[in-house]
Every structure is written in structure tokens, then in C-alpha cells.
């Protein structure tokens, strides 16, 4: 079977060159479009450095102030998004230093330690007939597209997401919620493709387990 693409491709946008030229000319439409498209991701990233949503929002607005002020100096050596992201992380770090809050992203996160995707007890052991194969297999979810859209399921998922280790949460949010590409996320966060996949996989696996628990409980 062919896997479905995990995320929708990003909406086609103007080239960096066009966007930069428009921002330099004070084009409000281009600015507002870019602001609206980038805002959720920027806020998510900022939120990993600072202690509250309110401060994260402040960091995003300050970042935009710096982007608008500094766009004349943007030389196009990196992608516009990468340049904006470096401004964002600098602003966020300044805030987090002010808050005397450790910067979680750059620190070693113990929550990222190796952890199986599925409880090992659900697989047959070496002295059983099919070692490593399912002992307690997953049960197909009935009408998942409808049930997972329920308010309760969404709340479960949000709560589980909030409990993921910081890096897993950020990467799941960028890849699966915001629909950013692997390349973009690696570039923005300075991660190797492999590390990005490992963190994404751990995050997704934990969330699947939470949804499984929720749907199985509802079925019994």
C-alpha cells in the first residue's frame, strides 16, 4: 500500500524576491498575508522559549517589527523564512533570558529518551509462537474521521500534545498541525533529517496511543 502524504503541501506563495521587494515598498497586502500565514508557526516556536502565550504573542509582534525595520538589510543569502526565524529565536531568547527561564529547545531533553512506540507487553515474547508480533493488536477504529473530530477527541489530543516533551511537541506542531515540510523544519531548527524524523515519530506514536485509548474505551 502507498502511504498517504502526511501533510498537505504548503500553499504556493510569492517568491522570496517578490515578497522582499513588496515589503521594502511597504506593500500592506503582502505584509498582512505573510503575517497571517506565518503567525501560528511563529507563535508556536516562540512559545517553546517563553512561559506564556501572551509573551509568545509579544515576541512575534516584536519579530515583525524587526523584520520590517531590517528588510532593507536582508541580502537573500538565506531563505526569507530562515532569516525571519533567526530573528524570532533571538527575540524569544532575549525574553526568556529576561524571564530567567531555561531555553528548553537547546538543552538536552530527558523526555526525548528512547521510548518504544508501543508498549512492549503488546507483542509476543521470545518463548511465544511469533516473537515480536502482536499479542494485543490494535483494533480498527470505526469511523475515525468523524469520531476524531469530536470536541472531546480534540481536547484529548490537545492535552496529549501539551504533555509531549518540548522538542517532540514543536516538531509535531510544525509538521502535522502547521503542515510545514521536513526540510523547512530541519532548516529552521537546525536538526538533521534523521533526528527530525525520530522526534516526529515519538511524538506521533504517543498521540496515537492516547487516541487509541480514548476510542477503545468509548467502544467498550
Amino acid at each position, binding site marked *: *500500500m502507498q*502511504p*498517504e502524504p*502526511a*501533510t*498537505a503541501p504548503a500553499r504556493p506563495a510569492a517568491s522570496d524576491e517578490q515578497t522582499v521587494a513588496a515589503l521594502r*515598498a*511597504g506593500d*500592506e497586502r503582502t*505584509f498582512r498575508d505573510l*503575517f*497571517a500565514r506565518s*503567525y*501560528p508557526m511563529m507563535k508556536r516556536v516562540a512559545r517553546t522559549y517563553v512561559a506564556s502565550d501572551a509573551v509568545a*504573542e509579544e515576541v512575534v*509582534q516584536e519579530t*515583525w*517589527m524587526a523584520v*520590517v*525595520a531590517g528588510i532593507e538589510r536582508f541580502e537573500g543569502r538565506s531563505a526569507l523564512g530562515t532569516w525571519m526565524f533567526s530573528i524570532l529565536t533571538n527575540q524569544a531568547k532575549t525574553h526568556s533570558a529576561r524571564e530567567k527561564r531555561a531555553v528548553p529547545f537547546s538543552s538536552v531533553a530527558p523526555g526525548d529518551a528512547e521510548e*518504544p*512506540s*508501543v508498549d*512492549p507487553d503488546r*507483542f509476543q515474547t521470545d518463548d511465544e*509462537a*511469533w*516473537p*515480536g*508480533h*502482536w499479542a494485543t*493488536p*490494535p*483494533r*480498527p*477504529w470505526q469511523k*475515525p474521521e468523524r469520531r*476524531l*473530530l469530536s470536541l472531546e*477527541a*480534540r481536547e484529548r*489530543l*490537545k492535552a496529549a*500534545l501539551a504533555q509531549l516533551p518540548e522538542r517532540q511537541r514543536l516538531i*509535531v506542531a510544525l509538521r*502535522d*498541525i*502547521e*503542515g510545514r515540510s521536513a526540510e523547512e523544519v530541519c532548516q529552521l531548527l537546525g536538526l538533521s*533529517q*534523521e533526528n527530525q*524524523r525520530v522526534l*516526529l*515519530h515519538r511524538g*506521533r*506514536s504517543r*498521540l*496515537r496511543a492516547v*487516541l*487509541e485509548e480514548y476510542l477503545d474505551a468509548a467502544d467498550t
Partner: protein
Amino acid sequence: MDNSRPPHNGHQDREFSVTADEVTCQQFVEMVTDYFEGALEPHTLSQVEEHLVMCDWCVTYVEQMQATIASLRELSEPTAPEPTDSVLAALRAKRGGT
């Protein structure tokens, strides 16, 4: 092969033998994201594909991961607040070559 083993019910009715080269379900669940991302080496990919042909349970697992990803996509909040007045003022000041 040990013929005394009970049937592995997740595997469809066909000759199914465990070899050292085979991917187990427990190994497969660790590879799902690499599989989705097209990051498996060709040899591993063919092992995974063979496994999925025979193991309905792992197909269910794949579907659950896909459903999880799809439901995450629904959490996206596309609304952004207004840019602050000071940002807009800085932008407007650029008009007319200033």
C-alpha cells in the same frame, strides 16, 4: 519453521514464515514515520511492504497513525490577530521610498 505454532491471525491466509530477514510487528511500529517519509532503505522498504501485505494488524496500525496525523491537521488555528499599530506604521513609512 516450527509447524506447531498457532496461526498468526493478523496475517492473511498464505504461506508465512519467519526468517531472520523478516520485519516483526514490533520493529515495524518503530519505522512508520520513516516509511511515510520515504526514508527507508530499499531493502528495508521491501521487507516492510512484504510485511504489510501479510499483516492486517500492522495495516490497522498504519491507518491509526494516518488518522492521528489527519486529526492533528484539524487543530490548526489559521486565525492570526492584527499586526500592531507600530508594525503597520513602520511598514507604511516605507512607502514613497522613505
